[in-house]
């Protein structure tokens, strides 16, 4: 499953990566009424388990990063699972292999900290909810945690038909 989408296709060719952050305490798994989302031993939060998922969209609404997507034809939630078929056998996830500018990199935070001015951060603040993740985001050097007010990113413009990328 490709976890990229165009931001505003009419205006720009910019895309956004819906890469899962693999939270230490995944909200999606905590709200799942069917016990279908699991965190594996290596810290990867997988897509919903097909036999369990009831396609209720709880995780879609609960995830503060907006990562899970309900795939209606499969009647199942699917999301980035860090290309588990690849990373579980030692390969890099597909997005990191094709990214030409290393905006998405599959390296340890210590390794990337030595090559960049920015600092890898894995603490996010959503209002009063603090989330620590397995995936790091590069933040300006002095920043300890990334504070996000969801209201800042809420779409308040005209409700126009946006063509789907796929």
């Amino acid at each position, binding site marked *: 499953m490709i976890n990229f989408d165009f931001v505003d296709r009419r205006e720009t060719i910019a895309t956004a990566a819906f890469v899962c952050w693999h939270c230490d305490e995944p909200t999606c798994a905590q709200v799942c009424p069917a016990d279908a989302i699991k965190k594996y031993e290596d810290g990867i*939060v997988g897509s919903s388990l097909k036999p369990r998922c009831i396609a209720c969209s709880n995780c879609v609404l609960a995830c503060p990063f907006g990562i899970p997507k309900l795939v209606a034809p499969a009647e199942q939630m699917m999301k980035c699972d860090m290309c588990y078929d690849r990373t579980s056998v030692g390969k890099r996830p597909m997005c990191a292999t094709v990214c030409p500018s290393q905006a998405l990199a599959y390296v340890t935070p210590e390794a990337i900290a030595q090559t960049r001015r920015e600092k890898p951060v894995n603490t996010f603040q959503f209002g009063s909810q603090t989330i620590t993740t397995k995936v790091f985001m590069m933040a300006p050097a002095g920043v300890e945690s990334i504070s996000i007010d969801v209201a800042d990113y809420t779409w308040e413009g005209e409700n126009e038909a946006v063509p789907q990328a796929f």
Partner: protein
Amino acid sequence: MKLFRRPSNAPLWQDEFPFYTADERYVSRRQFTKFLTLTSLAMFAGNLWILGRSWLRREPSYPRRAVARLDEVPDGGVKIFSYPTEGDPCILVRTAADSYVAYSQKCTHLSCAVYYDRQLNQLACPCHQGFFAVADGAVLQGPPRRPLPRVVLEREGDELVAVRMEEGA
């Protein structure tokens, strides 16, 4: 169940539906030991209860009840009656001029009503082809394992009186 929970401050639902795959079927040594101990205790108590019940069980008492007059049933004929309660159908068979036998009519397999097969001179259960001997109620053929309980009869004048039930031969 709280007794089998591993010590934790998390709410019960979080323990029972953990998001870590590794926690899904995780049972701690202490939980397992508790389970074994309590199950063994329950088994022990259950055995004591069975033992106590078998000690306390008394012989059931049966009423005397006239079931038929001697001339009421023809030779080779049958009469259905209830003994010892109204809910226990029994079958009386006159096997010879002055020979009467009676058995519970419930097949010992699945409690279908047995009938007297005059040609074979056997008690037959139509449900699963079980056959019992008329002479003593023993199983001749079919799925039943236990013989038919026998009704002990006594003759009082010209009447047959049921005295008690007897587990079959």
